[in-house]
Structures are given as structure tokens and as C-alpha cells.
């Protein structure tokens, strides 16, 4: 107990040193100089909390965890539960937009974009075990493919969508080809480098991409060739004229939502089929033991490349849809933080678990919208959650149950 108190005291002093220069001593500017406005309450409160936690809560917590670790388990989904929960989620998603307001549908569309991205990255990180920190680069490629094709060639969304996926896939293939022989953490850094290079190029190729301002005025997708807008361009009929409806902005939003839902479902369907195919099995095998795979005659580079490219294609689709929904693209939307957010969705959900990814995408997108008054603290808590998740549950909220055989 005495040693406990002593170490708690040391921890409290260290907490004081950590908090004081950031929260205790505010830098205030006065004319040409700066001075300090001390505020010791926060420092003392922080120190007190750390002391209490270290001295009393933590030993108790450890005892509690060791007592319960035998009996307490978070749910692990098996095949049947997974299928059931996915069906339920789809059913809710289908009827959802007709019962809620405009803002909710808008947020739900955003959630669906993140589900699409999360499922795409899940292939790369979750199944193939390749930590890709530059995923947002492929998202950007998709978004800019549509934006540029519209801007320079006047292409519509539906013609540009396959191109966006194709371009992102080509980028993924070309970038993946040289880097995939690198080991895990080097790969992470190189992909981060690629993501940043793509963003910096978008900023600097001013003549083509509009630089930091980006490209605006990108049209929304059409419905069977008819624009969904208040007024149609020369010689075209708008969708609501064709149907004989009044124009309603809500229709456009619901239409976008349903399209996002369709894209997300395609992503879900394709990825959940692919992981049951030989190549999907090979991804997982490779993640578990690369050397064993090589000895069994699998070609690691090709297998990794297929995962990397496929993830990139989904990111490209997501990007094109993002561009259509926003109506404008600029490099600001494709920073490293976005990559970290998508990665957090995959990690929080449980790497390799599709239901988990969907759940995490909902949590991480909806929570910040609900807790608007805490917007300031959002990113800080986000970082903290990433650290804590790695400590307590590195396998994620709803990890996937893998088919396996045990010797008894």
C-alpha cells in the first residue's frame, strides 16, 4: 500500500508537469510581447484525479478485471448472427429516409460513404493485414476523376463512376506494385507518403485541379438521364417534370441517400463474397503467416496487390459519389486525418468484421453530430479512444468469428 501511494504521488507530480504548460499557464499576447496567465485549478484537479486513479482505482480495477476475465466476454458474432444483423441493418436503412427529416438523411448519407470507405479499407487492413495510411489518396483520385472529367470533358456522374473506380484501381495497382514487398510498418509510412504526395500534387497542379480552391459546380447524379434539379439545362426534361411531381429538395436528398445505400450494399456484397473466394482466403492466410504462405506456393506480391487494388477501387467509387454529393472537391477534404478516421472505423469495428465496420462508421459519424457542443473536444477524444481501444480491445468491438477447428 505504501509503495502504491508513493508511485501514485510520483504519477501525480508528473501529471502536474504535463498539464501545467498547456492548461495551467495560458499564453496571452499583449502588444509585441506575450505574458502568462496562470490558472492553477485545472492543474491541481488533474493531479488529484491522477493520484486517486493510481492509488485506489487502478488496483481495484485490476482485481475486478482478473476476477471477471474468466466469465465476462464481449459478444463475438458467428455466421448466423452476422447475417441476421446485416439483414436488419439493411431493412432499417431502406425505410429510414421516409420517416425522418432532412438533416438526418443528410447525415445518414455521410455514414454510408464512410461505410463504403470502411469496407474498402477493411479489405486491405482487416483481411490482408496491410496497414494503409494513405487510403484517402485513392478516395481523392476517385473524387477528382469525376470532377475533372466533368470540368474538362463534360461527363456525367454515371459515365464517370466506372472511370473513377478504374482510375483509383490503376493508382492502387501502380503504387502498390513497388511498395508491397515492404514490411508492415514501412508499408504504412510509404502509403502515408503517397497519400500526402497525391494531396500536394492536387494543390500544386493549379492549372488542372484549381489548386486549393478545387473544382466546384459538380452536378448531382441524374436519374435515367434526367437531371434531378429545379430547372433542366436546355433541351432536357427534369425528373420531376417527367413524373409530374412538384420539385422538392427533399427528393434529391433521399435520392442521394438511396444511391449511397446502393453503392454501400454493392461494396458489402462484393467484399463479403470475395473473402470466401480462394483469393480472400489467401489474404487472410498471408496476414497470419507470410513465410508459411510462400512455402505453400502462394505469390505474396500478387495476393497483396489484389487486396490493395480492390480497396482502392472502392475508395474511388466512394470518392466519385462524395464529389457528386458535395458539388465541389478541394484538397482540404483529403488530409491524413481523413485516413486516420477511416482507419479508426476499421479498427474500432474489429479488423475483418463487416458488421463491426458498419457499426463503427455509424458511431464515429453520428456521435460528433449529436455532441455538437463538445465539437472542440471531438478530435482529442477520438485520439484517446484509438489508444484505449488498442489497450483493451485491439480486436475491435465486434470481432469476426473465424471458422476454426480446435484439438480437444
Amino acid at each position, binding site marked *: 500500500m505504501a509503495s502504491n501511494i508513493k508511485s501514485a504521488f510520483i504519477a501525480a507530480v508528473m501529471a502536474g508537469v*504535463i498539464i501545467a504548460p*498547456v492548461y495551467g499557464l495560458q499564453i496571452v499576447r499583449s502588444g509585441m510581447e506575450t505574458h502568462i496567465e496562470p490558472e492553477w485549478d485545472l492543474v491541481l484537479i488533474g493531479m488529484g484525479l491522477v493520484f486517486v486513479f493510481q492509488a485506489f482505482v487502478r488496483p481495484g480495477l485490476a482485481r475486478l478485471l482478473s476476477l471477471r476475465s474468466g466469465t465476462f466476454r464481449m459478444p463475438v458474432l458467428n455466421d448466423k448472427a452476422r447475417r441476421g444483423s446485416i439483414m436488419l441493418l439493411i431493412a432499417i436503412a431502406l425505410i429510414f429516409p421516409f420517416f425522418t427529416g432532412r438533416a438526418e438523411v443528410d447525415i445518414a448519407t455521410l455514414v454510408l460513404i464512410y461505410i463504403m470507405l470502411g469496407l474498402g479499407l477493411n479489405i486491405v487492413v482487416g483481411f490482408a493485414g496491410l496497414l494503409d495510411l494513405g487510403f484517402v489518396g485513392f478516395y481523392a483520385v476517385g473524387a477528382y476523376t469525376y470532377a475533372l472529367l466533368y470540368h474538362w470533358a463534360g461527363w456525367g456522374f454515371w459515365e464517370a463512376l466506372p472511370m473513377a473506380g478504374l482510375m483509383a484501381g490503376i493508382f492502387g495497382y501502380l503504387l502498390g506494385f513497388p511498395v508491397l514487398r515492404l514490411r508492415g510498418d514501412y508499408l504504412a509510412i510509404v502509403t502515408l507518403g*503517397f497519400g500526402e504526395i497525391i494531396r500536394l500534387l492536387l494543390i*500544386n497542379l493549379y492549372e488542372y485541379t484549381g489548386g486549393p480552391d478545387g473544382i466546384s459546380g459538380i452536378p448531382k447524379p441524374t436519374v435515367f438521364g434526367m437531371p434531378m434539379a429545379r430547372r433542366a439545362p436546355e433541351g432536357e426534361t427534369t425528373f420531376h417534370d417527367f413524373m409530374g411531381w412538384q420539385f422538392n429538395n427533399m427528393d434529391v436528398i433521399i435520392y442521394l441517400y438511396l444511391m449511397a445505400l446502393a453503392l454501400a450494399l454493392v461494396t458489402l456484397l462484393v467484399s463479403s463474397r470475395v473473402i470466401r473466394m480462394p483469393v480472400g482466403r489467401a489474404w487472410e492466410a498471408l496476414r497470419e503467416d507470410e513465410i508459411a504462405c510462400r512455402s505453400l506456393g502462394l505469390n505474396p506480391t500478387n495476393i497483396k496487390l489484389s487486396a490493395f487494388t480492390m480497396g482502392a477501387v472502392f475508395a474511388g467509387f466512394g470518392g466519385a459519389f462524395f464529389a457528386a454529393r458535395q458539388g465541389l472537391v478541394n484538397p482540404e477534404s483529403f488530409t491524413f486525418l481523413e485516413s486516420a478516421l477511416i482507419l479508426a472505423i476499421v479498427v474500432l469495428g474489429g479488423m475483418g468484421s463487416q458488421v463491426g465496420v458498419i457499426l463503427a462508421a455509424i458511431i464515429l459519424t453520428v456521435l460528433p453530430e449529436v455532441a455538437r457542443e463538445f465539437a472542440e473536444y471531438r478530435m482529442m477524444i477520438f485520439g484517446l479512444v484509438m489508444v484505449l481501444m488498442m489497450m483493451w480491445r485491439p480486436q475491435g468491438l465486434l470481432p469476426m468469428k473465424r471458422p476454426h477447428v480446435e484439438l480437444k
Partner: protein
Amino acid sequence: MPEFIPQLLQQFFNGLSLGAIYALIAIGYTMVYGIIGMINFAHGEIYMIGAYVGLVTLSAIGVSAGLPVALIILLMLIVAMLVTAVYGYAIEKVAYAPLRGGPRLVPLISAIGMSIFLQNWVAIGQGARDMAVPALITGALQVDIGDYTITAPYSRIMIILVTIVLMIMLHLYIKHSRLGRASRACSQDLRMANLLGIDTNKIISFTFVVGAMLAAVGGVLIALAIGKLNPFIGFLAGIKAFTAAVLGGIGSIPGAMLGGVLLGLAETFAAAYISSQYKDIVAFSLLVFILLFRPTGLLGKPEVEKV
């Protein structure tokens, strides 16, 4: 004398002072990687926090208090080093130590979370906007060569001098002290060192502390030279310093110094002779190319993958 030689010298000086900063940060990456094989993604944030602590110290003393400038700078450096040492120690204990021995990607993800946390920790505490740092050292050394004048601001000369002094001290410490010897043993073989009675946990903490202190010095010096800082300067600087560490050969301390200087020079020359907008692209491309063609860097030893 042709015009381009003094211009070259000017760029060389600029690159050297920038590279010195990269080298100071890169040492933290390389030492940590050398011992526990993880990329401490939050290291760039330590550099940023060092700069803030320096500014807090400066503001607490007051520029016009009448203390000699050298003493003020010394105090800033010492306080920043002490505080970031605690940061480095605590980060390792909280975010990395519990994860040791698990899969390699787990601590990396935790480090990314830590990095995001620290950026916003400071952004909320001290404000997210640019903060001006009062100019302590003004003036510049000017050397005329032919028609061209080379300008070397004293604040940048100080960066180079302080860095050289610290590098020599670090080198001697690692070479001759007990802790330094132990940390070299750990970087050769962590488990073996443990079996031979070295407290490896202590050595790992020591590595984080030393790395943090050097990064803090870099932060304080660059804040004084550039005159402004914000909570998000650590990300880019951290990535670039990591590039420097990889360039020199990750795990090798002289390699980090060399890599830092080379990266600084490459960036400055790219900015001067290609386009200043492309200097970040040059740094990132360099990172990609080294990892592709010579992942062991200039002075690193190849890593053997064992079953």
C-alpha cells in the same frame, strides 16, 4: 566570381540549419526504432510541445525583464527538455508499454491515436491558431562574396551550433556511459540484454526521454528562428524527420544525423531551384524512393527476418 557559387553557399547554409532540426527530431525516431522496432508516430508532437513549453517559459520570464538573452534561451531549453522528458516517459508508459509483445501494427495505431490526441490537447489548451514568438535574437551575419551577400541570421547559426554540441554530447554519452552502453546492447538484442541483467524497461524509457529532450530543443530553436508556431507543426516535421531517420538508416544514430542534414539540403535546394511549392513533395518522394530501393538507408544494417 560567377554568381552561382555564393548562391549555392547561401542555400547550403539554409539547408544545414533546417537539416539540423530534422536531425534532432530524427534521433528520437531512430533510437526508439533501434530498440523496440516501433515507429513512434507521436514523436513529432513532442517537438511541437517542446516549442510551446519554450514559449511559455519565455513569456513567464518576460522579454523585457532584463535577463541576458543567452540565459533566457538556456532556461527555455532546459525547461522544455525537462517537461518533454516527462511527456516522453509518460507516453511510453501509458500508450506503448502495455502493448509490447503484441502484433506490430497495434502500437503503431496507438501511436497515431496519441499523435491526434496531443495535437488537440495543445490546441484546446493554448488555442489552435498561429502564435507569434517574440524575436529574441535579431540580426544576421552578412558575408560579401563578389556582388552577392550571404545572409546568415544569428538564430539559424545558433541552431547549427547547438545541434553540433548536442550531437557530440549524445555521441559521447552513448559511447561511454553505463546507460549508453546498456542501450546499445538493447538495440543489438533486447532479450539477450534482458537475460544479462539489464533492466530493459528502464532503457526503453531512457530512449524515449532522450529522444523527447532532443526534439524539444529542435522545437524551441525553430520557434525562435521562425517566430511563430501552432499545434499542428509536429505532424509534417515528424514525418520529415522520420524520412531523415530512414534515409540515414533507421536504428543508427550517426545515420539520423546524416539523414537529417541531407534531407534539409535536398529540401532547400529543391525549393530554390525547382519550386518552393514542391519541397514537401520532394521530401515525401525521397522517403518513398529510399524505402523502395534501399530500405536499410545509408548507414543501416540489413534486418534479417526470422521465422
